[in-house]
């Protein structure tokens, strides 16, 4: 079963607006489990492509899925749906922050949320690392990426050095 253009747009609008903490998990649940437009494997392929190509991976994934159903128009509708809702929310958030961001209570609350978000990112990293069950060489690749990023080495250099190492290591089993 495949969606009409309107259904595609509305699905992505919903994904954008409900996707707290990153949209990929929400997108999979709606498109694969609830709507049945895609098989698990097709979704995983689109997401994998989105992650390997440069750019925001949720967006790349939306483009691949939109294009799959309705070509260029589908890609555009999926992108627009995914970004329009969150952009509108963001304008409101940014305006409120400008207005009230310096109030002591707001500053305190935001510092608390920032600390929680930092822990959340760390937790996500460990969860991903455990789930990957990497080989020792891939562990080393990840650890080097962590170290170099902490040392503030510019990312282009980090990728130039570590992408070949990782891809080479991934080919050895």
């Amino acid at each position, binding site marked *: 079963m495949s969606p009409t253009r309107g259904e595609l747009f509305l699905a992505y609008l919903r994904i*954008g607006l*409900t*996707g707290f*903490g*990153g949209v990929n998990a929400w997108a999979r649940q709606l498109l694969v489990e609830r709507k049945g437009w895609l098989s698990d494997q097709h979704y995983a392929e689109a997401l994998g*492509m*989105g*992650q390997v*190509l*440069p*750019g*925001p991976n949720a967006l790349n994934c939306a*483009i*691949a899925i939109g*294009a*799959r159903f309705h070509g260029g128009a589908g*890609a555009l509708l999926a*992108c627009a749906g*995914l*970004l329009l809702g969150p*952009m509108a929310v*963001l304008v409101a958030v*940014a305006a409120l*922050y400008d207005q009230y961001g310096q109030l*002591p209570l707001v500053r*305190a*609350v*935001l*510092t*608390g*949320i*920032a*600390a*929680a*978000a*930092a*822990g*959340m*990112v*760390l*937790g*996500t*990293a*460990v*969860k*991903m690392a455990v789930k*990957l069950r990497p080989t020792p060489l891939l562990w080393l*690749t990840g650890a080097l*990426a*962590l170290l170099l*990023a*902490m040392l*503030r080495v510019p*990312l282009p250099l980090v*990728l130039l050095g570590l*992408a070949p*190492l990782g*891809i080479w290591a*991934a*080919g050895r089993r």
Partner: protein
Amino acid sequence: MSEESDLHALVVSFLGLSLISVGGGIAVLPEMSRLVVEEHGWMSQLHFAKLFALAQAAPGPNIMVVGLIGWHVAGAGGMFAAMAAMCGPTSLLAYGFTRLQRREFPWLKRVERGLVPVAVGLIAASGLLLAEGTVREAPLVLPVVAGSFLFVWRTARSPLWVLGAGALFGALLLRP
């Protein structure tokens, strides 16, 4: 700096960042903070961590933090310019790739397997940098970082719970 040169710097920064952003929005945070905090001096590390937290608490892709940075630097125009620079060219690239051919790419799997560990290392670095930015300003929040880390790692519940708990902790204990 004039508004125009800020806009220009925003577009150039995020355009460059988008082209090397492999592994998603959070993996490029260290580079983003290097550009935004150190190279351009647009904000402090704590402010950067707060904008990231705001973007996380709002719905949408992780990359929305780019819009908030753009807004902070150059208002609504900055928000749209930064988002367009971050999303536009790579979207065209992704579209081109999907049109190119529809068959399987066996090498894609291997590239993915090799790049995911790099992304995970970068995501861990993002977490440490964000934690450093907040803990340095407010050492009291260390247990929030640790608690949220354990919660997200060990449970499958929505991260909104820890963001809410962090907000409550801040409201009760961090008010000057």
